């Protein structure tokens, strides 16, 4: 990433209070790696053919800085997460440069006033004011990478000849059982993601990491057999209904649903002894969130 930012959430407090941030803008044509039709949280309708970038630093920094290429799409399921600006990434759309999670704010530019533009200086001071008062603000824990990384490999470098994502990284981030289902190519990656991504999970122990990768994915055959993507509320409700029985479901489906509930409802909030799933759900339904990065769990929203 460099000295520019785009997709700024200009109505947000960090650009408005207590100072009004005024940037110098650079207008550019949409680059090839921000392909027409690609979207991100700050570009829900895609990047227009001509778009503008705000200068955060006076000049383009020399040298390579790999630190600020976090694909914000990873964290849209984190309660309270704020995407506030995209970095000018040479890789792909959806790289964040300004973001907040709980009491942490990520500032993806220099903090040195010798390098900052007036707009960036004002924004940095505003950020300090914005964060003040967020003492002890809770967020969900980080356990593992999200399923979005697998999708990223299907597009990253597709137009530049970079193939390590699909040939090496994708393959080695699957458990041994599931590597056999994967063809290490862009076409193979796309096919695999389309079929299996709704049912992957990770973060449950040594089987989900290896010497090189902190996160290794497994496909949940129970959820797949039921046709219930593991992160959807409709799936949670389906498992509860199946587990409760009485609907003429098969014993096999009921057992699958019970395994899914045990697998995806965080132990900290699981039903107490004698508490049935329906009653448990009614008591907590408005406070439940599914978060990939928290270990692929339904858990209590810490921001509520």
């Amino acid at each position, binding site marked *: 990433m460099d000295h520019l930012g785009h997709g700024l959430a200009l109505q947000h407090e960090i650009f408005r209070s*207590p*100072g*009004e941030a005024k940037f110098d803008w650079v207008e550019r044509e949409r680059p090839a790696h921000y392909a027409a039709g690609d979207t991100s949280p700050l570009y829900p309708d895609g990047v227009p053919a001509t778009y503008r970038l705000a200068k955060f630093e006076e000049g383009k*920094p020399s*040298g*390579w*800085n*790999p*630190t*600020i*290429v*976090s*694909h914000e799409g*990873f*964290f849209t399921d*984190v309660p309270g997460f704020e995407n506030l600006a995209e970095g000018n990434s040479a*890789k792909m759309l959806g790289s964040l440069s300004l*973001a*907040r*999670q*709980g*009491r*942490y*704010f*990520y*500032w*993806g*530019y*220099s*903090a*040195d*006033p*010798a390098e900052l533009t007036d707009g960036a*200086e*004002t924004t940095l*001071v*505003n*950020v*300090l*004011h914005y*964060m*003040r*008062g*967020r*003492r*002890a*603000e809770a*967020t969900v*824990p*980080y356990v593992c*990478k*999200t399923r*979005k*990384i697998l999708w*990223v490999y299907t597009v*990253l470098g597709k137009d530049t000849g970079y193939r390590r*994502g699909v040939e090496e*990284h994708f393959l080695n981030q699957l458990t041994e059982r599931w590597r056999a289902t994967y063809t290490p190519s862009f076409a193979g990656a796309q096919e695999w993601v389309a079929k299996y991504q709704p049912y992957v999970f990770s973060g449950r122990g040594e089987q989900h990491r290896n010497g090189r990768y902190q996160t290794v994915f497994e496909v949940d055959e129970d959820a797949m057999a039921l046709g219930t993507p593991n992160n959807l509320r409709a799936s949670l409700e389906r498992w509860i209904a199946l587990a409760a029985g009485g609907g003429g479901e098969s014993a096999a489906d009921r057992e699958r649903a019970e395994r899914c509930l045990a697998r995806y409802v965080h132990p900290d909030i699981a039903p107490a002894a004698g508490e049935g799933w329906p009653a448990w759900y009614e008591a907590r339904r408005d406070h439940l969130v599914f978060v990939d*990065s*928290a270990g692929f769990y339904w858990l209590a929203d810490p921001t509520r």
Partner: protein
Amino acid sequence: MIRAAALATLLVVVAPLVAQARLSVSVPHAQDCDVRATATDRELRLELRLADGFHAYARDVGGGGPVTLKLDPACGYEAAGPLLPPADKGGKVFGAAVWRLPIRPQRAGAELRATAWLQVCDELMCHAPERVELSGRPGGFPVLLVSGARDERSGRIADFLAARGLDVDVTTYAEATAAMCERAEVVLCDSKRFRETAKVREHVLAFPQTTTPIVAVGFFGTELVEAHGVAMTSGYV
């Protein structure tokens, strides 16, 4: 830790949890009354402590002139509502009393300047009306700047923040403690660029856990946030 040299001299943070700044008060001929003023970004408070037997006026009841408080229109604050006087007895105010003026900043780090007029009386006579000049930088709050080293860069950042009304302490990743972080309202964890950051990373990864909000900058920022078990910067490829 070192105190940022350019810290605005008029600012004294007296209550860090609410970041209320005491303002400089100039009262050439104060008689039978102590005057104090404090302010946050949202409220200017003028406090009078009247000597026994003396009173001021919260409203015009035909005695002495009531207390007025007006912002200098050229300063970086504007009134956000009318002056709110204390409770009175027939227009008179006794003992300790506070007038509150809602305000809002027009830019970060602006100086607040205001003028109050007050008149102190007893049952027999009134002192001459007194003009009170108030000035200072409200909105300041303690920020801990954490750097790889105390150097020109950290000095520039500290001076920059202090000039905008913030109360800046500077430390390094090697020296930072949880107690230092807890004393601040925000911790700003700076980072030079990748490959300019040798020999500091181990301290970044061991940065103390704190309840204080953290603004994490650049490469070290990503490392620190992930080391604290927060997903936000874990996804870069």
